[in-house]
């Protein structure tokens, strides 16, 4: 089956589009997560393909549907941002023995196609629609929501998986070559770390508003606190370590003013959701969480790294799109789960949203107050990448679980979980979803 990348027409990139035509008519129901690992241990069942099958089957079971009812699959075929299979390294034979491969020997190991999934899930006998939403789960769920709303699929699995291999992250692939293609050459030439651009923006933010790096400490502390209450997350499963304010302030710089704990940890993990129509969702096991809108940020900076002015203009524009399509305003948000990888741009997202009345330059002061899950102003109850490891999807799982009332120890109690927003990754360049406990 040929799987296309989602066309631009499936997204909502502009202001003035009005309420989303499928507002409240699409729902997320089932959730499935694989266990996390720091790196692949070489066992086939723990490969990125193997853990994807696990997550998908768990989502199906969680939703309480029969596999033959599923007719759609939306996923991201790219499974890393910087861990590459070493050139010339042989593919493990047992991988080939356990799974049905595609023409690409790295499929299921260092990438993931819809064909690989369908080859290895024979129970999915009725999948007629497959599509790629590349980059992260934030993209894939917007594509799935639109596809279900448009009637392209009625019961759709959405999948995002991540692999990580032994050795240094970001040291392979194009970074290991003698030439870097495209405009990346201009950034990569000097070997700047990934957080460099965000650190630049954060430095300008601190200068403009008279803030300083240590004011991020409560956000980091809160994120890890919440993440340690997320049993699906890496830190909760493997290294239940808090990051205290003292820890944060003592960490070494990576790209000043971004330090070690302003960066996240690459891991292996897979998550899947089951999306369906509001009508079908009523008969499924879990409470439906309705999609009120999805929105795209595709603003382009004038130069290589967005300036603070460009970031602020874009996050404000994104917020207007989010609210307009969902038919809500900032005051309707029970909580927010915007992306945090890197944490130093989280405040750009929530200031753009005007969450709890925030204006630009307010967030770091806001972080000094009660931002915990039991207070009236929850910030990132998922814990995000800092709390759970690099996946870019904890915030979506958390929104669904919170609105279903099954976030466990992480359940927000200071607000009634009714409407939430999540998305990312970047302030300039991301996909956003508005979730609701009710269809209207």
């Amino acid at each position, binding site marked *: 089956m040929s799987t296309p990348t989602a066309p631009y027409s499936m997204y909502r990139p502009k202001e003035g589009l009005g309420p989303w035509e499928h507002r409240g008519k699409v729902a997320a129901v089932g959730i499935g997560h694989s266990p996390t690992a*720091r790196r692949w241990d070489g066992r086939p069942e723990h490969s990125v393909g193997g853990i994807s099958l696990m997550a998908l089957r768990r989502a199906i079971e969680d939703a309480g549907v029969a596999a033959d009812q599923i007719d759609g699959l939306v996923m991201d075929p790219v499974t890393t941002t910087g861990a590459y299979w070493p050139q010339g390294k042989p593919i493990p034979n047992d991988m080939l023995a356990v799974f049905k491969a595609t023409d690409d020997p790295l499929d299921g190991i260092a990438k993931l196609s819809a064909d690989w999934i369908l080859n290895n899930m024979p129970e999915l006998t009725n999948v007629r629609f497959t599509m790629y939403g590349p980059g992260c789960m934030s993209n894939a769920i917007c594509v799935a929501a639109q596809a279900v709303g448009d009637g392209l699929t009625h019961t759709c699995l959405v999948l995002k998986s991540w692999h990580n291999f032994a050795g240094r992250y970001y040291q392979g692939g194009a970074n290991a070559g003698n030439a870097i293609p495209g405009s990346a050459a201009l950034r990569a030439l000097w070997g700047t770390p990934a957080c460099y651009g965000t650190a630049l923006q954060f430095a300008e933010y601190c200068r403009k508003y008279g803030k300083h790096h240590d004011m991020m400490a409560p956000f980091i502390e809160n994120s890890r606190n919440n993440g340690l209450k997320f049993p699906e997350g890496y830190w909760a499963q*493997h290294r239940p370590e*808090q990051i*205290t304010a*003292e*820890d944060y302030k*003592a*960490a070494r710089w990576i790209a000043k003013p971004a330090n070690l*704990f302003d960066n996240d940890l690459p891991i292996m993990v897979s998550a899947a959701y089951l999306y369906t129509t509001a009508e079908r969702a009523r008969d499924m096991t879990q409470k439906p969480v309705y999609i009120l809108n999805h929105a795209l940020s595709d603003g382009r900076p004038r130069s290589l790294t967005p300036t603070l002015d460009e970031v602020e203009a874009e996050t404000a524009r994104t917020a207007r799109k989010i609210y307009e399509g969902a038919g809500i305003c900032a005051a309707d948000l029970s909580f927010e789960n915007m992306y945090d990888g890197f944490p130093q741009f989280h405040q750009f997202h929530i200031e753009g949203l005007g969450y709890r009345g925030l204006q630009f330059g307010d967030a770091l002061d806001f972080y000094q107050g009660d931002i915990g899950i039991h207070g009236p102003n929850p910030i990132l109850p998922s814990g995000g990448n800092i709390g759970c490891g690099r996946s870019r999807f904890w915030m979506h799982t958390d929104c669904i679980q919170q609105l279903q009332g099954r976030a466990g120890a992480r359940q927000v109690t200071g607000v009634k979980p009714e409407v939430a927003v999540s998305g990312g990754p970047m302030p300039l360049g991301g996909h956003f979803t508005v979730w609701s406990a009710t269809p209207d």
Partner: protein
Amino acid sequence: MILISFDIDGTLVVGDPPGILEVDLVRAAKNQGLLVGSCSDRPISAQRALWKQHGIEVDFTVSKHMLADVKAQFEAAVYYHVGDREDLDKRPAERAGFEFLWPHEALEMPWLSRGSCGAATKQR
């Protein structure tokens, strides 16, 4: 007096990934009177928790870039850092005036294998 700093991840067996040095080696070094501690990218509170979990009272727990502070704080005849990374252990250690040992080299040092460390130390 000998001061020895241990990296954790990739160096000690309790690291992530596990290294080759047993925690009991650290305990033995401490029991022999060496100044012992950890210098790791783990949060300092997590380093303290690790040592508490293993019942070892270390002399210092610091972040990766703070070996120079350790040298300023403790007086010793020789300072060692044991780690598994060229860029994050060896080079910073040497810049801070420490001798550097890879884990397998540390295993061959007499003060880890059988122990002899000189008199008690004083904190600067």
